[in-house]
């Protein structure tokens, strides 16, 4: 033991004499991070990125980003003798001829889906709790940048195998480039080098996918995390939490333990998916052929909403002065451009409209900001209609609905669903606010119904705190959860933890509550 300590001391000394980092290390270890499950969503995105780098590096050892034609002669017999690009045949090799290649390829694909999904959910958390407010607008911008980069990276990645599905996606991407007014054809030739598909695009997408975009993502993540460290994390309001402190656990060992465990669990889930849940079975699609397509050609989920908007947009083409603006331009370039611009600028727009220049480190409950929450619900509704429309052919086939009816449902739904979502959410927020105030004023419903001498029945309410001369509670709403059920305010103490068997001693709970009382500066028995 003492020998180990000696070696540790010597190593630390060796490092510190060269780095002088002892102070910084201690300060980092002592950094306090608030504990709430929703603060780990961004971590999931970060871990997915690490897993993507690990599995992606493995895949580069076998993938050949070349569009040179070869005749396939690998293990997968149904495609033997067929001409295809080296990109496609090397992806087949990863799937069939590399020991364990398929499981890594599938983990990589699942991790890409989770990466974007975790970013989106993390963004929603940040949005609905107001975590983007001053001084964190810059980090919001970095986050929006990461989302956009994640979409590009994903698209570039699933376009690499040069199978029928990804080739179809690239063809549509080429048409989207063509639709840009004035410079469209020049952009198209700049990207593809020649008329579609040419022989350049897979190689160009490859270098973008493995170097350029991941490099940008890495830099953005580094800045994103640096700003979290600099600004310190936000926290939900609660006992002892103010705008001027952070309450939680220290980085080392507590947060590191939690994060390390979560990383392993996220990786485990992706490994399980990569093993048992088939994804992107490119050998079933066949090599890309511009004259072929299969029904139900859908992009990965995060591009699906753009496919949906493309399907719903009416056939409006502008012809003027011998020039054409394609109907493709509006739903695929203008719409996402406007949406991502509004998304990026949202913190500034909200601050401007609410004239809010203060620093905010305490989060808001969504119900307390009904307009913002309504706007968020409206955006989600808009997005969901588009996403559903991206698969409207599958829905039509599965549920025996007319395909054209699905298109019209999407077109009308896109205009009708968001306002309804806004209104319903707004009303729900107000209802929840009123209920909080009601409980603060009248107390918690006890379930005890009493008959008064004159015959009236009333339910007895348990006030949450001191009451005024009318029997109304005097507690102010503090932006935090209000207990709604009696067992949430019971003086009997909470239940012992443990699912199958108790994991704590009853005495520990008493101690804990004693400590809590001391912390809150309350007398030993609040009832008296």
């Amino acid at each position: 033991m003492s020998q180990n300590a000696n070696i540790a001391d010597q190593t630390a000394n060796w490092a510190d004499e060269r780095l002088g980092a002892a102070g910084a290390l201690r300060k980092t270890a002592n950094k306090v991070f608030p504990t709430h499950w929703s603060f780990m969503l961004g971590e999931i995105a970060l871990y997915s990125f690490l897993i993507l780098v690990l599995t992606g590096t493995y895949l580069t050892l076998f993938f050949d980003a070349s569009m040179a034609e070869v005749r396939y002669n690998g293990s997968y017999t149904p495609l033997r003798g067929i001409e295809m690009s080296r990109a496609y045949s090397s992806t087949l090799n990863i799937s069939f001829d590399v020991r364990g290649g398929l499981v890594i390829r599938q983990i990589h694909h699942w991790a890409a889906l989770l990466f974007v999904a975790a970013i989106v959910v993390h963004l929603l958390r940040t949005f609905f709790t107001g975590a983007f407010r001053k001084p964190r607008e810059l980090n919001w911008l970095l986050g929006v940048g990461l989302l956009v980069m994640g979409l590009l990276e994903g698209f570039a990645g699933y376009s690499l195998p040069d199978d029928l599905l990804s080739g179809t996606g690239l063809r549509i991407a080429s048409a989207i480039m063509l639709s840009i007014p004035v410079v469209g054809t020049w952009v198209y030739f700049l990207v593809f080098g020649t008329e579609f598909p040419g022989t350049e695009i897979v190689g160009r997408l490859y270098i973008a996918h493995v170097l350029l975009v991941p490099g940008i993502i890495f830099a953005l993540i580094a800045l994103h995390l640096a700003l979290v460290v600099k600004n310190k994390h936000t926290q939900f309001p609660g006992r002892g939490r103010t705008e001027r402190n952070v309450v939680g656990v220290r980085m080392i060992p507590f947060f590191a333990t939690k994060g390390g465990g979560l990383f392993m669990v996220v990786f485990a889930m992706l490994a399980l998916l990569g093993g048992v849940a088939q994804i992107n079975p490119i050998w079933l699609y066949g090599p890309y052929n511009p004259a072929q397509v299969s029904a139900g050609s859908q992009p990965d989920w995060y591009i699906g909403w753009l496919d949906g908007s493309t399907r719903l947009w009416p056939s409006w083409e502008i012809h003027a002065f011998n020039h054409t603006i394609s109907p493709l331009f509006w739903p695929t370039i203008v719409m996402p451009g406007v949406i991502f611009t509004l998304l990026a600028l949202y913190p500034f727009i909200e601050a401007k409209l609410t004239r809010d220049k203060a620093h905010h480190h305490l989060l808001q409950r969504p119900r307390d900001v009904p307009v913002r929450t309504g706007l968020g619900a409206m955006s989600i509704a808009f997005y969901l209609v588009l996403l559903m429309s991206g698969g409207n052919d599958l829905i039509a086939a599965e549920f025996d609905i007319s395909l054209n009816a699905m298109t019209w449902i999407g077109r009308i739904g896109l205009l009708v669903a968001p306002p309804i979502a806004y209104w319903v959410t707004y009303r729900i927020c107000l209802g929840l606010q009123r209920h909080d105030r009601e409980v603060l004023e009248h107390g918690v419903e006890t379930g005890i119904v009493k008959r008064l001498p004159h015959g009236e029945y009333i339910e007895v309410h348990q006030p949450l705190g001191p009451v005024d001369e009318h029997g109304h509670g005097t507690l102010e709403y503090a932006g935090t959860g209000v207990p709604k059920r009696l067992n949430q305010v019971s003086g009997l103490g909470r239940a012992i933890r443990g699912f199958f068997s108790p994991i704590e001693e009853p005495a520990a709970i008493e101690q804990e509550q004693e400590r809590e009382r001391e912390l809150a500066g309350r007398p030993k028995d609040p009832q008296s």
Partner: protein
Amino acid sequence: MSDRDPSRSRDLTVDDLEEMSDSERFRAAAAQLDDVHVLSVHNPAPPDSKLGRRAERKVAACFLLTFVSVVAFIVIFVAWPWEFSPGDHSFFAYWTYTPALGICMALALFGLGAGIVLWGKLLMPHEEAVEYRHGNRSDELDRQTTAATMRDALVTTGLPRRKLLRRSLGLAGGAMGLLAVVPLGGLIKNPKRALFTTPWKEGARLVRYDGVPMRPQDMEPGALETVFPGVPGGTKSADAATMLIRLRPGQQIASRKGQEGFGWGDYVAFSKICTHAGCPVSLYEQQTGRILCPCHQSQFDVTLDAKPVFGPATRPLPMLPITVDSEGFFVARSDYREAIGPSFWERP
């Protein structure tokens, strides 16, 4: 990292550490140097308690699961008969190889993850610590001195005074910017008229993907065949794919202006490339004469010269003028008379 509150005195000295335990040293340093205060520590399972021992066994079981799963992973990775051989009885081994690897890997990772989480939850003390924020702005002294340092540096360089230096530097900087961008000009290609033409030309035979030329007697009424120009590279061209359709008896074509007589007998030929986003329009419904693009559901009516009747496409599929040559094979009478595929700016 150095957002230490300067107003706070740093009164912990090395001498103070002498009499302290590690725990006391950490607390003193956290509170006095880092402004981090541990409010409460609650130990869920003291080391010598029954609960503590049970929790430790749970964590150890998780770590053991990881070890066993890694061993299983290695054995499967090395020894499993994983080669793909359809029809063979070893196909089952191939079919279960990837799931087996994935499950072993997942169990290994999950064991480690769950072990660490349980370790944190059941064995490590639960603490509540508080750290103070010191505002986002730097303090006034830093702000003013930094601004002064920067202004002084600017003056020291002489830039504000020396107009010629400033202007020539601006010119050089702009030029360097151009130098960084201009080599990318190698990527620029003039599209010229490429999008207006396809490999189709007068006399090019209509051949199938396997190169077999088409004759009028080859197709049943109501049939559709994808054909390519019988020229070198014709089947590889992304803009040449054409649908040769034999109408059903009684199907009347209402020709678009200028396209009368583009067909041959009851045969018509349209570009297969959707005028919306360039997917091959592939789904032909004989009964209604409608062609559906599976990408965005644009629908074209063959009897109206492939005019779009539903969905986002705006223009009819271009029609290829065809005839039959002296040997009885279908040939094109010319290239398409308009640009095929999606719209673009230069398209009239």
